[in-house]
């Protein structure tokens, strides 16, 4: 009796969160799906009827599609490689005994707390400006011609900005994972004469593999959706138009809602493919 009672009370306590999230997911998703099968131009006639899969076909056959796919892959891939490689190195470094460890940790983590619009604008103007930026001063100091970063090396610049924001996240999680490594195991290997690189390759890296996978998946999901960094720097020009930015432009700038919604459905499918892998890892951990 008591359990019956507490079960229904539990259901009642869960209801607000479940209902809200269900609405948040289903209502807009259904609308996006409906729009994606329509010719829908809010500023030029509004809802012009059903068009089947035309928007889906047009979205992938437009000249902007493949460049957007490649920009997305380069940015996401570049940031992932940089943050994972340097994240592992930094985590190992921060795990060593040193003076002022706490302060160094704070310094390294700080960029994660800077809002995206601030970091993008500071990098764009104070560092990457071709006339007054710090990089321009540095280049001139070494006698080189300053670069117009955001137009001549646009993708690299975006990768640099976004990596700076996400490196702390990767480092922090990998550091947490490294600290759970049994130090006796490492000491035993050291006693047996295993060199540093071998210890890293056969003990540290396997121990970190799960955390690295988690970082990879979570970052991929967030990186697929980066917006502010492009919005305030290049506005999608110079080959930095990612899929997210392309969809945003179709929907809000050119107000072609049908076409943009079809793109949105592609983005949702893409994110779900990544999400499935992440959910598997999280789900396994939930059982343990």
């Amino acid at each position, binding site marked *: 009796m008591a359990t019956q009672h507490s079960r229904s009370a539990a259901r009642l306590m869960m209801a607000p969160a479940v209902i809200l999230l269900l609405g948040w997911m289903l209502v807009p998703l259904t*609308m*996006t799906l409906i729009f994606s099968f329509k010719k829908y131009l809010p500023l030029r006639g509004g809802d012009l009827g059903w068009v089947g899969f035309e928007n889906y076909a047009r979205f992938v056959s437009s000249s902007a599609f493949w460049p957007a796919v490649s920009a997305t892959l380069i940015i996401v891939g570049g940031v992932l490689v940089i943050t994972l490689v340097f994240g592992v190195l930094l985590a190992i*470094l921060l795990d060593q*005994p040193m003076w002022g460890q706490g302060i160094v940790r704070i310094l390294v983590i700080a960029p994660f707390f800077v809002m995206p619009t*601030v970091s993008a604008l500071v990098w764009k103007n104070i560092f990457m400006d071709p006339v007054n930026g710090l990089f321009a001063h540095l280049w001139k100091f070494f006698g080189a011609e300053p670069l117009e970063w955001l137009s001549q090396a646009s993708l690299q610049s975006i990768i640099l900005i976004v990596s700076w924001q996400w490196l702390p996240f990767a480092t922090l999680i990998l550091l947490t994972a490294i600290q759970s490594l049994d130090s006796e195991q490492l000491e035993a290997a050291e006693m047996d004469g295993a060199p540093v690189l071998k210890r890293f390759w056969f003990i540290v890296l396997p121990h970190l593999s799960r955390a690295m996978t988690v970082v990879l998946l979570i970052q991929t999901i967030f990186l697929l959706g980066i917006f*502010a960094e492009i919005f305030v720097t290049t506005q999608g020009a110079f080959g930095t138009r990612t899929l997210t930015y392309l969809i945003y432009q179709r929907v809000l700038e050119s107000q072609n809602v049908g076409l943009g919604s079809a793109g949105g459905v592609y983005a949702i499918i893409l994110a779900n493919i990544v999400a499935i892998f992440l959910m598997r890892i999280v*789900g396994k951990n939930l059982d343990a």
Partner: protein
Amino acid sequence: MARSVTNQRKALNTALAWAVGLLIFFPILWTILTSFKTEAQAIASPPIFLNFDWTLENYAVVQERSNYMRFLWNSVIIAGGSTLLGVIIAVPAAWSMAFVPSRRTKDILMWMLSTKMLPAVGVLYPIYLIFIRLGILDTRIGLVVVIMLINLPIIVWMLYTYFKEIPGEILEAARMDGATLKEEIIYVLTPMAVPGIASTILLNIILAWNEAFWTLNLTAAKAAPLTAFIASYSSPEGLFYAKLSAASTMAIAPILILGWFSQKQLVRGLTFGAVK
């Protein structure tokens, strides 16, 4: 002998780690320094590091020109309001999932997580349209609700993992001693749950404060928070580095300080318990 070797190695580690740490922190440090320079000194070549005439003028100009306080207030309301609302909704849900788990609890948790992975741009127009229809475009209440919803899965998850750590034996012991449900919640559970709830609030204020997709797309003049205020500096106007730096420093300072207290919670909150 052995000791001096370790000390040497420790010194090497320290030097290397501090160098890397300062390099990573440098853009923030430089922004803070620039905010105290005059505009001319801010673009001086070669750049001036410390020996400039420190001034607070930029902060005064930014406040005067842009009504900074209003943006700040919008940020405070949106971040604080969405977090508070989210916690009020999430505490009962996480509570019941942690203490009265059923066969479906795991599925519900996983499903909640999956809503977090929905790309925002995929539902941009529907939300935009709903906001217009309800007349809440460019209002704080609209943003409070949206930001609350995007962070709700994280809040539920974090609270769930904290509540899970409260040992069930304590509840049984309280019940044996004749505590009623009400007494159990007030005297036994609440004191044990408060630290977890506080951590959750902290992390979510940070996430909400920095959210920059919905705040940029759903606000204009009235409800714009600091993220949008900073974005308005993206079209340069004459000399503006020092003012940009002052505005940036003011926008990030509160959250940098909060953030430093929340390193541990960050890992728990953003990996959904997958890394411990």
